[in-house]
């Protein structure tokens, strides 16, 4: 099985749900779907193509929207499903029913980007440090960190 066959199969299995499919390098496939079709696509990928291993989920702040990438992998290919959600309503479904191992990555998304993952089995807010102020999401591009001044103890030389 190689990338081309997989792409053909995706086109067959998902049809119009595919917004875009790319194969920029060997063993790398990027498939773009709408958020509403995300769960179906992932269950197709898992159940019919046997991609059980979720490597990770990346979130990118694109400005007006967030891009979420689900990196799957199996024995011959790294398959990335991407989707975009608007910044003013950053919510997406949880995939933990399909992939139980996704829980950590989804909580990370909540914490670092302030996304709203629906039906996440463990919905408690993700904390950075215990004293982290609410509403701050470090990985958003508009979040800036002010570095405190450093005081070096000891005598001046």
């Amino acid at each position, binding site marked *: 099985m190689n990338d081309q066959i997989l792409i053909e199969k995706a086109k067959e299995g998902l049809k119009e749900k595919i917004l875009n499919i790319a194969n920029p390098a060997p063993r790398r496939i990027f498939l773009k779907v709408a958020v509403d079709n995300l769960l179906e696509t992932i269950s197709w990928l898992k159940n019919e193509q046997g991609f059980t291993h979720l490597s990770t989920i990346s979130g990118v702040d694109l400005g007006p929207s967030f891009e979420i990438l689900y990196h799957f992998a199996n024995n011959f290919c790294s398959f990335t499903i991407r989707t975009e959600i608007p910044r003013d309503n950053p919510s997406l479904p949880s995939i933990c029913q399909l992939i139980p191992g996704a829980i950590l990555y989804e909580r990370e998304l909540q914490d670092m980007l302030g996304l709203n993952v629906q039906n996440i089995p463990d919905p408690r807010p993700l904390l950075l440090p215990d004293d982290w102020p609410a509403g701050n999401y470090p990985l958003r591009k508009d979040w800036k960190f002010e570095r405190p001044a450093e005081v*070096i*103890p*000891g*005598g*001046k*030389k």
Partner: protein
Amino acid sequence: MKIGAFIPELLRHLAKKPATVDYPFKKLEVPKGFRGSPYLKPELCIVCRACERDCPAEAIEITSLSEAEKKFRMIIHNDRCVHCAQCVDSCPTGAMLIDTRFEIADYDRHNLKMQWDYIRAVVKPKSEPKSDQAKS
């Protein structure tokens, strides 16, 4: 399953010389290419700031003391340096070098700074300019 499978090895080593090195009473040899602390040869520095730009740990600080005299001050903060030698690779003139010392622990962070005040040198970059990349 063998009871006491480890005993022969242990007893064998009881009679042997321990693997311990006699540091700090006998100094250790570090290998030739060991990356210790970076230092500057001020007579070669053309103040291109490539080292400052590529240093990952903000360990190099170049300030201009006097524009007219082309006088500069370079501070290497040994308390920040991660001894990666990127500055050595980045320097186009070979003004930045690295030594092999590692026993530089100190009681005061201020003593870990190294500072040079110097006039900008006028030297041609060695053969081909290699900005950030490796020496082949």
